[in-house]
């Protein structure tokens, strides 16, 4: 699309005698900037706002509600405030690397966005290595974190960086193994290809494809939580132990970058999960929808974003509820439990695909039923607890 547009510009001479490749380069950079500033950063920002409001409700507070209607612009205000702030670089820090670290982190995060699909057409680049590309690019984030931890010349930051490295390197293995179970089924690494092989109904999603993918979904979820440094695995920045871990010495815009990545990563994690296991942007084919590409893509994008944000909110909920694990518990969870289970899953899925290459309808329906009854039971328990305690859900200080 972009290429055609640029070609047409060159053809009618608007760009003068600019060489074709240079025009492409400028066009790509422009489009990239548009995507980054118009979309990626906004997703991070909005996610911070959503998190604060969701937390506030969970903790019977109100949350930010002053900037814009219902405080919806709070994230912009925060961002502008942080950009305006003076940046303090510690005298003893290694200033070159200290300045470099946030950008390494941000590059790792933004380049991962390239392969995240939003609808059948809305994807920056449908790489045929999609999922592998995303996992490899997010691994740049940890390098940035380690640089930040070391360059701050602060022992708390250093410990934070070391913890981040140990944690992410360990959890990458079960995460990758569980992702590969899905790839065994699809036979493609492309994000769009994976989604296309699922259907709109839950029984066509890969989470309910076989018992192994059902377990694999939870392993992926836990491992990606750990890779994204989210509670209960937020050890690298554990504010009650390590002050703020690797971001202790950062301030102003560089601090902002770290947190953009942190919250943006929430979305990337959800998007990966939704793509792999939860049917991606698949929508039911209502007659007439397929004829209009605009409406089709819109419904698909809305479906995808709603599903992803359901994941994001689940992660916020977890963060608001659970305490943090200790380092030894973190490692034993990964190596003693997740990794062996992930291996069994991998082998099991391989066998399953060998026996039923087209999927086994009965198992899919039964697992769907199981999944739904789990959700229903969960909500039943929540309501039961609320009834029993007669909890006051809101706190009115004036009463």
């Amino acid at each position, binding site marked *: 699309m972009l290429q055609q547009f640029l070609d047409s510009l060159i053809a009618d001479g608007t760009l003068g005698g600019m060489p074709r490749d240079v025009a492409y380069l400028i066009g790509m950079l422009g489009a990239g900037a548009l995507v980054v500033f118009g979309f990626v950063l906004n997703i991070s920002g909005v996610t911070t706002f959503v998190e604060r409001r969701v*937390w506030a409700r*969970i*903790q*019977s*507070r109100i949350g930010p509600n002053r900037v814009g209607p219902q405080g919806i612009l709070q994230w912009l205000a925060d961002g502008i405030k942080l950009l305006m702030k003076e940046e303090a670089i510690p005298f003893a820090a290694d200033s070159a690397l200290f300045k470099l670290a946030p950008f390494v982190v941000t590059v790792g995060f933004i380049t991962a966005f390239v392969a995240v699909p939003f609808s059948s057409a809305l994807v920056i680049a449908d790489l045929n290595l999609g999922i592998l590309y995303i996992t490899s690019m997010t691994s740049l984030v940890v390098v940035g974190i380690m640089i930040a931890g070391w360059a701050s010349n602060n*022992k*708390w930051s250093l*410990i934070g960086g070391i913890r981040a490295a140990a944690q992410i390197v360990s959890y990458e293995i079960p995460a990758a193994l569980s992702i590969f179970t899905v790839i065994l089924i699809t036979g493609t690494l492309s994000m769009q290809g994976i989604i296309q092989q699922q259907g709109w109904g839950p029984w066509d999603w890969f989470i309910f494809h076989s018992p192994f993918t059902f377990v694999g979904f939870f392993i992926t979820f836990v491992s990606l939580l750990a890779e994204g440094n989210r*509670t*209960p695995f*937020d*050890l690298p920045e*554990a*504010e*009650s*132990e390590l*002050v703020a871990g690797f971001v202790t010495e950062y301030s102003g815009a560089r601090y902002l970058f770290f947190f953009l990545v942190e919250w943006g990563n929430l979305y990337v994690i959800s998007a990966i999960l939704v793509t792999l296991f939860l049917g991606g942007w698949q929508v039911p084919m209502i007659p007439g929808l397929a004829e209009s590409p605009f409406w089709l893509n819109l419904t698909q994008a809305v479906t995808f974003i709603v599903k992803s944000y359901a994941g994001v909110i689940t992660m916020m909920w977890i*963060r*608001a*509820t*659970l*305490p*943090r*694990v*200790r*380092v*030894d*518990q973190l490692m034993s969870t990964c190596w003693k439990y997740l990794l062996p289970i992930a291996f069994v899953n991998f082998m099991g899925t391989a066998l399953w695909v060998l026996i039923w290459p087209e999927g086994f309808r009965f198992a899919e329906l039964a697992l769907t039923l199981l999944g739904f009854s789990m959700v229903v039971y969960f909500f039943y328990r929540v309501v039961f*607890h609320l009834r*029993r*305690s*007669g*909890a*006051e859900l809101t*706190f009115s*200080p004036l009463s």
Partner: protein
Amino acid sequence: MSIAGFEVEVDRGRGLETEEMTLNMGPQHPSTHGVLRFVVKADGEIMRRAIPDVGYLHRSIEKISEKVGYHGFMPYTDRVDYVAAMFCNQGWGMVTEKLADIEVPKRGEYCRVIAAELNRISSHLLSVGTMILDIGAITPFFHAFREREKINDLLEELCGARLTYNYMRIGGVAWDLPPGYEEKVLAFLSQFDRMLEEYDDLVTSNKLFRARCSGVAAISPADAAAYNLVGPNLRACGVRYDVRRDEPYSVYPELEFDVPVGTGSAGAVGDSFDRYLVRILEIKESIKILRQCFQQIPDGPVVAKVPRKLKPPAGDVQIRVESARGDMSWYAVSDGSEFPYRCKVRTGSFAAMGMIEELSKGLMLADLVTVIASLDIVAPEVDR
């Protein structure tokens, strides 16, 4: 060296020399509960020891007592332990009354107990809430503080202050209970009872919370006695000792309550989880005490006639109060003048703080905050 319950032999023969890292934790650290400082000698994530460095909040309260007179010292006692100021009030009141042979009217004693037990609940809520926060869960902290706010409202109605109450006087309390106070407190208690159960479900049965606390810094009863660990920390080690029951003062002999002790339900007896659980159980006992107080409280004056210029006869006395942080020991010397000759308060946190260096050996770095929080250390109480 021991890691997570396993004895680990580190092979040092093949040149795997490790170096101790010295970490400076505090004075401004998010989880040191006030201005505390630890010098942590760590081997990676494992602590060799954590050396406490206190004194950042030393306000010479004992020296001040020698200058301001018996009545005048009462507001200063609030600052000894601002989380549970009622007990410091009560301690100073009791030690002076013992020095000067003052009898507190019955209603005054009941008012004291009501205020003190309300304060104990709020202090335990703060302790438990911050402990959970330090371990990493955020929401239970807000829930605990929401209930604490309600107690603060009640205490504000009682004495006009939310933190430094200055409610008690030598010979009784400053004001009688305001009208309708009983209904308000009982309404709060019946609501709080149910909420407490809810928080209990949320935290006590939380697997991650248990895993973080079980077996961390378990203390034996003998060690607890040698280090003079007091209050909930002592009871968590399995020693059934409560000053309110065993060295009764005020109207506690007329009240019925249990003394909960740690049972090692999550691992070892006397570990961090037991210390947490004992506090939760004590909140329930305090609720019981409060309900009984409102049934038994007699009419009458709330404060005895005490001369404005109090000159107790020369002599020295010691009294002990079961504060929220345990046996608070007040020692006062009078020389017959209107100023105390010497006053000394030995607080619960002081004793607990002295033990941390010993407890910290071989723990993980993350466990240090668990230990500080579970021992319920309030920095100003250490330094006074």
